[in-house]
């Protein structure tokens, strides 16, 4: 003990702290301790190796899911399933409403916009067809889920008088949209929308999907990701409905 400490130490406190002395007769067992340390070091090495292996495996799986096409499709299907299950589990999630009755439908806001090839896409020109108008953006994750469904619908029902029109709301327009539609092999016309048109359709958040009957009237407007089977049924109903009315 140095002189400085001796002069300042508090005898009363030291007396009490001294009672904690474990006793001079006790000598910690160095050999046993060293054996235990060696054992823990070996176990620690193994544990850290196991973590490294787990991390590497996770990275490989992520890489495969992102880079390779077939796992990517699998991941996409998993995402679709998850969305469907999540929706079915939510008690508050309302079931997608049915179509408006023909008498309650109003004319859809008109538009005339150019597609990627410079060709005009005018809504009045599509009269006589059932039209699915989809407001979307390349950055919108929900849109990425439903666009492949619209590609399927276009393929399946185009021959029966159905068409999808995608209206992109990307700020930088064709710069990001063109490469995207090329990569995703979108088989229906895509145009670049504007805020005014979005407002007319009641766009508050992406995505928004409107279904128009053959008369160009709004039969359904859905905010958020659509339900694939319900939307497919609505398209069928609209195609059938128009078929009935024309016969």
């Amino acid at each position: 003990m140095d002189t400085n400490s001796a002069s300042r130490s508090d005898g009363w406190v030291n007396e009490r702290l001294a009672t904690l002395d474990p006793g001079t007769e006790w000598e910690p067992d160095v050999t046993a301790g060293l054996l235990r340390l060696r054992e823990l070091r070996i176990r620690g090495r193994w544990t850290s190796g196991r973590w490294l292996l787990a991390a590497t495996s996770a990275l490989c799986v992520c890489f495969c899911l992102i880079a390779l096409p077939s796992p990517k499709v699998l991941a996409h299907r998993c995402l679709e399933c998850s969305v469907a299950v999540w929706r079915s589990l939510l008690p508050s999630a309302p079931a997608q409403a049915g179509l408006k009755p023909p008498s309650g439908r109003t004319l859809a806001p008109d538009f005339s916009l150019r597609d990627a090839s410079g060709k005009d896409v005018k809504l009045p020109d599509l009269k006589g067809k059932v039209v699915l108008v989809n407001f979307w953006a390349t950055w919108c994750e929900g849109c990425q889920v439903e666009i492949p469904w619209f590609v399927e619908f276009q393929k399946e029902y185009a021959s029966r008088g159905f068409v999808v029109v995608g209206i992109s709301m990307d700020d930088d327009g064709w710069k990001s949209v063109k490469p995207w539609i090329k990569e995703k092999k979108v088989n229906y016309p895509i145009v670049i929308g504007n805020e005014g048109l979005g407002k007319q359709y009641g766009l508050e958040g992406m995505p928004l999907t409107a279904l128009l009957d053959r008369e160009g009237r709004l039969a359904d407007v859905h905010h958020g990701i659509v339900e694939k089977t319900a939307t497919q049924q609505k398209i069928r109903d609209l195609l059938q409905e128009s078929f009935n009315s024309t016969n």
Partner: protein
Amino acid sequence: MYTVSTSSEAVADTSASERHLDIETLFRAHYGRVARIIARVVGDRARSEDLAVEVFLKLWRNHKAQSQNVEGWLYRVAVRAGLDELRRQTRRGHYERMLAWVQPRIPAATPEDIHSISQKQTKVRSVLSVLEPRQAQFLLLRSHDFTYHEVASILSMNPASIGTLVSRAEESFRKEYIKRYGHE
């Protein structure tokens, strides 16, 4: 008496190029003292030995700690490990007392046990467990005969201010002890 940084040359191969630390040599040199410091706080010798081994394991894992003042790091971590264990014990004791209402009574301690449990030690430990960790560290290191200079080195503090800080810690200890147990 322990020297904070000079003995590191004897126990660790700190060649500038490799900075390789011989953990087993260090263990043989300091294990006893580290375990005894922890035993002061914890009171249970077997548990103290376990905790002391864990301190060395931490050192082995912590490459940053191996680069400078290894002994200082060891004693600092040892005191902290002891205090953490003491707080755990205090909490456990609290819950056990609460559960005593619903659980069957634990058989009474044997006369031998009763003899081994020092009332004074229990009181001192309970006061240490509620002090600020820094103050408890000062008191424990001082009670283990570390000089002010060594305490300063272990806690990486200015040696000039240690005297004042230790006095404050002693004062806090005294107040808390008297508040709980009176002038015994």
